[in-house]
């Protein structure tokens, strides 16, 4: 076991991939490695070691995504870091129409093994354009795996799987998670896609939480536990593929479902999870399911406005209490 930050976990996975696989190359290296709170020696060592495959392209997201796709089809395994996730909107056509479709349209002849990494979420003062969380849009597009890690271990183990996957994978890091410490297994390890992780067991309410909301849900669980309420925190970890069986199993046990997601609620992963439970486990629901998510409004800059709409432990606690009429 090693204790490290989420950022270090990701860097370790990327470093391992670069070390063991000469087809791995990084586009957008600087903003993945620098300014992420890593020790400067660690940053420098990384550039020294793999510098020839760490590329910083022009601010041309569209061709970056296209290029990664073309290179992947030709035998490379590009890891693209777009930086802030809204920058990826510039590359939307390439990701949705080209990357996600390439394998299917070719009847499986082509493969696009690449990772599109980006920073999502409400970061504090990011305002409307730098606080986007595009995960629900990505989940709506066929052909793209979608990973939302929440801990250092998950970040490292899932990134290993993402780089090794023969499919294009969207990998979303919430900026506020970068410095979160966690225990990770030693050495190289990986975590399979499509396996939810019960981050805390409980009997009263199933809280399905993604990304940063896992941390908030665990904080909520502590508070609620003092009131005798035990929530079960289920972290799907990957949205595509989604472990709906684990989610339904938990709801079948608790009879109550809350989905905690920081992103905009409308047509979201939260909507999808609630729908799947309604379709498959309606009989188990003792109370209406609940979303703790952002209302559909652009994010404002001022701290008071930002806080007003940011889902957090307090809002989860309040929603759980309401669900249990407490």
């Amino acid at each position, binding site marked *: 076991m090693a204790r490290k930050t989420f950022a270090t976990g990701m860097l370790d996975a990327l470093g391992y991939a670069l070390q063991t696989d000469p*087809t791995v*190359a990084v586009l957008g290296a600087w903003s993945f490695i620098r300014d992420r709170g890593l020790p400067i020696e660690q940053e420098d060592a990384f550039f020294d070691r793999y510098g020839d495959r760490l*590329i910083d*392209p*022009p601010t*041309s997201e*569209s*061709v970056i*995504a*296209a*290029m*990664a*796709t*073309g*290179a*992947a*089809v*030709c*035998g*490379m395994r*590009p890891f693209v870091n777009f930086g802030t996730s809204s920058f990826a909107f510039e590359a939307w*056509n*390439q990701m949705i*129409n*080209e990357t996600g*479709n*390439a*394998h*299917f*349209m*070719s*009847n*499986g*002849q*082509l*493969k*696009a*093994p690449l990772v599109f990494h980006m920073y999502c979420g409400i970061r504090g003062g990011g305002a409307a354009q730098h606080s986007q969380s595009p995960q629900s849009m990505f989940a709506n597009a*066929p*052909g793209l*795996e979608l990973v939302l890690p929440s801990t250092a271990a998950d970040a490292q183990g899932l990134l290993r799987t993402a780089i090794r*996957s*023969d*499919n294009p994978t969207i990998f979303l890091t919430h900026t506020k998670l970068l410095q979160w410490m966690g225990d990770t297994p030693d050495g190289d390890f990986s975590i399979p896609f499509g396996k939810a992780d019960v981050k805390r067991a409980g009997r009263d309410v199933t809280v399905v939480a993604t990304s940063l909301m896992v941390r908030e849900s665990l904080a909520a669980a502590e508070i609620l536990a003092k009131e005798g309420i035990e929530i079960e925190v289920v972290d799907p970890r990957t949205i595509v593929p989604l472990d709906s069986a684990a989610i339904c199993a938990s709801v079948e046990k608790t009879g109550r479902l809350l989905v905690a997601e920081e992103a905009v609620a409308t047509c979201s992963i939260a909507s999808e999870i609630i729908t799947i439970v309604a379709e498959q486990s309606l009989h188990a629901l003792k109370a209406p399911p609940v979303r703790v998510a952002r209302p559909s409004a652009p994010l404002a800059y001022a701290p008071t406005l930002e806080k007003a709409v940011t889902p957090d432990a307090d809002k989860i606690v309040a929603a759980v209490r309401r669900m249990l009429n407490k």
Partner: protein
Amino acid sequence: MSASLTGGERLALLERMLLMRRFEEEVISAAAAHKYIGRNHLYIGHEGVGGPALVQLGARDVTHSTHRNHGHMIARGVDPGKALAEIMGRAGGLCGGKGGTWHMTDPTRGFGSTSAMVGGSIGMSVGAGFARKQQGEGVSVALFGDGVLDEGISYEALNYCSKFSLPVLFLCENNSQEGAHITSMLAAKRLTDVPASLDIETHVVDGADAEAVHGCVRAALAKIRANSRPIFIEAQLARWPGSHQMRPEHTTGVTDMSLVWDEARITGEHADWVRHHDPIRLYAAKLLAAGAASKDELLAIDARVKNQMAAARAYAEASPFPDASAALENVFA
């Protein structure tokens, strides 16, 4: 005449170009017979570009194409039966009927993903160039129309390749030269001003002159292989009068080899195109005039091509539609 082609190569090139043409004629005929949905962008009139350019590529070279891709596939030696079957949505098609006319691909012939989005594939060519440079062998060829230069990604692609010195040949088939339907709206005085402004070597070539294209592409490929810098070639084409229709009709008639030696019989609304712009007739006439081919040789070539296409059509028609279960396969690898 190009010193670089032997007599045999010249005949082989003509035969390939004729196969590209007869392929499209079969596409038209299949559409007319309602064998498939029938929405297509045909390559007729472009054979003098894709033919000579693509027959030169090697096994490690990669191409990316667009909606007007049929000719590119045939030029690179893709099986015409499988290509036709794909256009007809059959299980025996190149992509099992999943891709269709717009998304045909054949990685065994160096094709990457084919896009129907204007500007959809030019950026992927950059990635292919990047990969081949890393891997130490092969070049990437971006095939695209003039309309693609309307899209910002083309500019990004050119800039990237120039900045990082990637081995990419940008081959633009500019068919907005003559005719009513113009597919690009560029403010540039010359289309090549755009790549030139990004420090890319550019050439303009007559797209109806197969050997001129051959020579221009040959020189460019040699240079790209030697020094890994991108080169941009604009092949200028008079638009084929039938190329605007999405549901193709053969506006200029089925290609008649006898018009090669019997020019007087060229008549009708589109006589000008047949006389001055049909790259196949022009090339055959050139070979004939130079004594590089006889009428009989030309007719023999045509007979072979027709046989090949008849077999291809038979293969495609015999191929069943894919089973419904395939609709959800190959979403992920």
